[in-house]
């Protein structure tokens, strides 16, 4: 049997199985709170703004954006990579901790996976929108056709991207969904509303909770987990090849695949932390999402932040070490100094320095500061993508083509729209889906009850 002497109790409050079910299902059964309606309203407004911006893009053209002859990609690709990065956490979190049999993940993985699905959905919007003729997007599907047949260019990173994102979205969504089946069954069984019983019953696939079902459920989790683990690494590596395969200074870098994957995990974990703090606060899930969970995430963030700092330093070193004047210009004259100094240093400070505050226990335990830091990390990660995209393109090989880029309201609108979509998606998740994996939490209840008398000593050290 799995022991948790090191971790301490994973669930506080001396719960029994029934309490767990009712605690977690409570938000689904209770009427919709006012704050939820208000925030959902705001997020829908943001989404509508985004829809209008998308409408403008489709009707007027990419010309409604700020991109130009030299900077062909702007906010849309920055946001794409940013969302994909955030969308990394859920699956990375669940899968790696699942494979490593880290049971403390159980109270967090559901929210992380939900976030992944919503974020990847937001991300997937951008590669479609950035096309000049989005109505011909099907050209990038490798389907047999009567034009020869004319195949896609299998050498193009954009095609790899398309495959990687599609696969990742499908596997993440499946993994998330199959994990929820037992919980849907629990809701079905507990709820008094006929409608809910019917709806959740439908999604529960007639789950009865028999041993055989549990056996298959576990097997499926591991199979999907195994596949997803590979995808977690591949999807952002492949996104990074959009840049790494090119000839542009600052893009043409072998360090990009690992650097992007780590960056994605970084931003994803930061977003998980943001969400978990919110969930704890609003839904009073302190007993499930304990201080020690946040403590653990904060420690991971310190570690990843160090890798990020190393990656930035490596890039700069390699630019100098390569002796390429173009690389050197990009890093030393267009990032560290130059027009985009603010964006560069915002990236470095937010990603490499600020998370180091988590070395202090007081900072880790102060949820307000932790919350702010988790947000700053995602701001920093956004600037990282801005740096990669804009500084490299705006001043590349021929100074005659150097230019500047600034977004228009349309690009900002689409971004605001995806933020709205994300918040709305997360709110729907809060309301209609058990935020914590009930069955999985139950599976660790016995273990934690052993330590129930020592909870004052609980910590990760």
């Amino acid at each position, binding site marked *: 049997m799995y022991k948790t002497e090191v971790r301490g109790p994973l669930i506080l409050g001396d719960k029994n199985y029934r309490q767990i079910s009712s605690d977690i299902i409570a938000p689904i059964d209770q009427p919709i709170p006012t704050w939820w309606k208000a925030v959902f309203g705001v997020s829908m407004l943001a989404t509508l703004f985004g829809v209008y911006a998308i409408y403008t893009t489709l009707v007027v*053209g*990419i010309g409604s954006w700020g*991109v130009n002859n030299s900077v*062909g990609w702007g906010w849309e690709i920055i946001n794409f990579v940013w969302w994909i990065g955030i969308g990394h956490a859920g699956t990375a979190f669940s899968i790696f901790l699942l494979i490593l049999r880290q049971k403390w993940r159980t109270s967090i993985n559901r929210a992380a996976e939900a976030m992944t699905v919503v974020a990847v959905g937001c991300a997937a919007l951008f590669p479609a929108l950035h096309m*000049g003729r989005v109505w*011909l997007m099907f*050209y990038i599907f490798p389907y047999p056709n009567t034009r020869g047949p*004319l195949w896609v260019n299998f050498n193009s990173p954009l095609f790899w991207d398309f495959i990687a994102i599609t696969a990742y979205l499908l596997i993440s969504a499946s993994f998330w969904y199959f994990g929820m089946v037992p919980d849907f069954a629990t809701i079905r069984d507990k709820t008094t509303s006929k409608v809910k019983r019917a709806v959740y019953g439908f999604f529960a696939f007639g789950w009865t909770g028999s041993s055989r079902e549990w056996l298959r459920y576990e097997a499926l989790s591991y199979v999907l987990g195994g596949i997803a683990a590979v995808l977690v690494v591949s999807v952002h590596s492949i996104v990074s090849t959009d840049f790494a395969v090119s000839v542009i200074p600052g893009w043409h870098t072998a360090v990009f695949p690992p650097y992007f994957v780590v960056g994605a995990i970084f931003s994803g974990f930061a977003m998980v932390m943001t969400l978990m703090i919110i969930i704890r606060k609003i839904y009073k899930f302190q007993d499930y999402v304990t201080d020690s969970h946040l403590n653990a995430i904060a420690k991971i963030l310190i570690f990843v932040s160090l890798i990020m700092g190393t990656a930035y330093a490596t890039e700069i070193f390699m630019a100098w070490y390569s002796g390429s*004047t173009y690389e050197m210009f990009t890093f030393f004259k267009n990032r560290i100094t130059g027009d985009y100094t603010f964006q560069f240093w915002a990236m470095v400070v937010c990603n490499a320095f600020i998370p180091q505050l988590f070395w202090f226990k007081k900072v880790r335990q102060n949820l307000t500061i932790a919350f702010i830091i988790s947000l700053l990390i995602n701001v920093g990660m956004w600037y990282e993508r801005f740096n990669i995209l804009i500084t490299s393109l705006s001043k590349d090989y*021929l100074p005659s083509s150097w230019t500047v880029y600034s977004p228009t309201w349309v690009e900002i609108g689409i971004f605001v729209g995806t933020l709205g979509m994300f918040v709305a998606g997360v709110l729907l998740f809060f309301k209609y889906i058990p935020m914590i994996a009930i069955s999985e939490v139950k599976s660790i209840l016995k273990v934690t009850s052993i330590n129930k008398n020592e909870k004052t000593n609980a910590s990760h050290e």
Partner: protein
Amino acid sequence: MENKYWKSLEEFNNEPDNSPDTDKFPSGKNLLEIIDEEIEGKPSSRRNFLKFVGFSVATAAIASSCENPVKKAVPYLNKPEEVTPGMANHYASSYFDGSEYSSVVVKVRDGRPIKIEGNTLSPITRGGSSARVQASVLSLYDNESRLKGPSKAVKDFAWQILDNEITAKLKEISGAGEKTVILSSPIISPSTRKLIGEFISTYPGTEHVVYEPVSFSGMLQANKLSYGEPIIPFYHFDKAEVVVSFGADFLGTWLAPIEFAHDYSVMRSLTDGEKRLSYHVQFETGLSISGSKADTRFPVKPSEMSGLLIGLYNQLATLAGKTAINGGSTHEALPGIADKLWKNQEKSIVVSGSNDINEQIVVNAINELLMNQGKTIDYSSPYLTKQADDSKMEELVKQMNSNQVGGLILWNVNPVYDHRDSEAFVEGLKKLKLSVSLNSVKDETLAHVTYSAPAHHYLESWDDAEPIKGFFSLAQPAIRPIFSTRQKQESLLKWMGKEPDYYAYIKNYWLTDILKSGEAAWTKALQDGVHQIENATRSIGFNAESLSVAVSALNAYPAASGFEVSLYQNLSMGNGQHTNNPWLMEMPDPISKICWDNFASISPASAEKLGIAKDAIIKINDFEIPAFVQPGQAEGTISIALGYGHTAFGKVADGVGKNAFKLTGFSNGNRTYSFSGTEPALVAGEYKLATTQMHHSMEGRPIVRETTLSKYQQSPDSGNELHAEYEEKHTTLYKETEFTGHHWAVAIDLNKCIGCSACVIACQAENNVPVVGKQEVMKSRIMHWIRIDRYYNGDPANPGVVFQPLMCQHCDNAPCENVCPVSATNHSSEGLNQMAYNRCVGTKYCINNCPYKVRRFNWFKYANNEKFDYNMNSDLSRLVLNPDVTVRERGVVEKCTFCVQRIQEKKLLAKNEGRRLEDHEILPACGQACPSKAIVFGDTNDPESEVSKLIKDPRNYHLLEELHTLPSVSYLTLVRNKAEEEA
């Protein structure tokens, strides 16, 4: 016979059918209502549901997919012999707009001219052209600006009544002993000169006054004083080892730039093992393209020119053992220049762009000292394109205002816009009994004249030209007149009471006066477009007297104070008569890279002194204009381009820039284009100029490789050492593509490229490149497929300037190709980097991954869009589009194709004729237009082709060759003839 069936007795009896319409379509009902009834009548079933779903889907699919707009294409009933649909015809013609001449070939597709090319048979322009010549085809289709028929007081009128009224008025004026004046731009048409002579004898008292907004009046008069004749000689830059120019932008706008560019490039060519270069010194105020090409350039104030000229004369006089004259500058560079000139007697040219008689006389004296007359400066074949005597125009305005003129016929002139005192001219017009404008476009003068008898565009006209004495050329119509216009000459003939048939007139004149031969010679002249008569060589004596008068006058000029303002013509706008041409309006100035505006260039140091930053506006006297900090501008001076600031010239021109003609002056009997004694003041506010290049230094990168002549003589690959290194390191893991058939390539000689931008407009005309407008240019979204990159190096006060034409490099290892997810851009078996517009989904990845940034994206729908109301928004202006080139849709990427349509055309021709393609047979639009022949296209698989030889030249290199993109375009290093320490 068919059986006739009947369905009712009424029908059988031919009675009206009163039966209810059961089997017909119910009247007054639409399809939806019928469907509704159908549905209502029947019980809903799955079968019905499927039926209607199937119907709706099929209808929707048909309605949305079968978008076939009806186009009326009517075939010929009787096909003209020479017209084959889809095949272009070429007609030789002549372009002359009153200042610039070019012998041209007009490409006509299906009855409409679509492209102007230089005529290679011309001994003058030799196939070269300029941006303005290239753009002239677009003004043919200017729906808005061209006059569509005769008018009286700006109201539409009939030709018949107009002719009667004008003839009556002319008779009345002539009968009353008053005079009519024909105010024209220079007339180089010999037949028209004869016609005007006849007109004058029909209406005695008629005078012909020639008016030019930017005149050579001072030079004409100076030559009259020096040589007894007001003529402008021909300059043989191809024989000049040393060229010293005082403010004459002879490669850009001065006198005959197309010819000079060609001749100059001959002396700047280092191919074929040539080891010498001409030496070119330029003294100038604003930075011009001539100054950019010069080996040594000195920024000087306009007022310093006369001193420099006298100084140079004195240096040379000392060397010649003659007595020096009073005054003159002791500029430190003068002894060296004099020395070089003295060593190259009979092989040098000294020119001045000044319109001052006295300065031009000193120039004459210098050239006499150097014995250049008859060698590099040829008075036997004088230039006839400059004819204006500014004092005559001044006098005319005075006479008009004192009621001494009865009638005025305006011939291709727009004085209300470009005369220095347009108010006086307008006042004078009011006092006339008759004022007629023969101009073909709406202009500022139109509103002030009574009659408008609009002329044809030159592509609709018969004409002839004699730009240089003895060098004749013909112009023939390439299209039937689009509007109800009439040839200018025919209007005169009509008013003289003669048969208005100028074709007969011109042919008769040519047969009797020029060809002195039969029909065959006429046909040949018409086909070739050119005809030459040998001039007897002669030398004319120099009147030394004129020099002393001139020098004492120059020494008596008041000393200049304060800031000096110099007004110049830029390459796109010239004197402002093409301002409504959107192609020219969007052509970036080769130096400042600004389009869609004129501005006050000011030197960096002066700008700092006056506190002028980016986007500032300054005020010069009462003239407010955006300021632009221009490296190389002479200290304490301001340069402003003429030709902008129109108020009634068309939607492109109106309100763009400021009209600097208001600042021109008049002194010593000539117009002056510079003045001193002003203090520019900063005005509150901000004005953004649209520029296509924001960074001006090469940042130490080996982009334009430059060396000096002496280094080149020691080792021809000087400055280009990197090339050999990269060639040596050239290696790849992959199998290299082999091109077994043709392998197209371009070599560009940076020594020959003068930055004139003729290629830019030629490419735009050939490839249907859209105009995007100032706002889009400011967003770095200009669409040009070829651009001229300009870099500065050295001291901002007087930088070195280099030009580099850049189009798609057609890399054989193209970074754009492997990143396209849909293979829309790919490589042809002949080495072309191709774009399949139909396949492009517009990811723009190729744009990002192109290290040369030559790919262009269709940000908007540029054709048929009110927001881009330039030349693709009306049926008429779209006639200029080349049917061989697709008009690109919104959202696709485009770029230079090496004019693939031309390659295919010539390949097909050679195949049909069963022969090999010849070198130079295929000319891309840029290479064809280039007056200095800097762009050479050809097949590298043909070892004898010129491009193959150029690629083997030690000066040859590829741009960014370290990236191993293997471009098909290569460049030849720039070599300047300057001393080592300066380099």
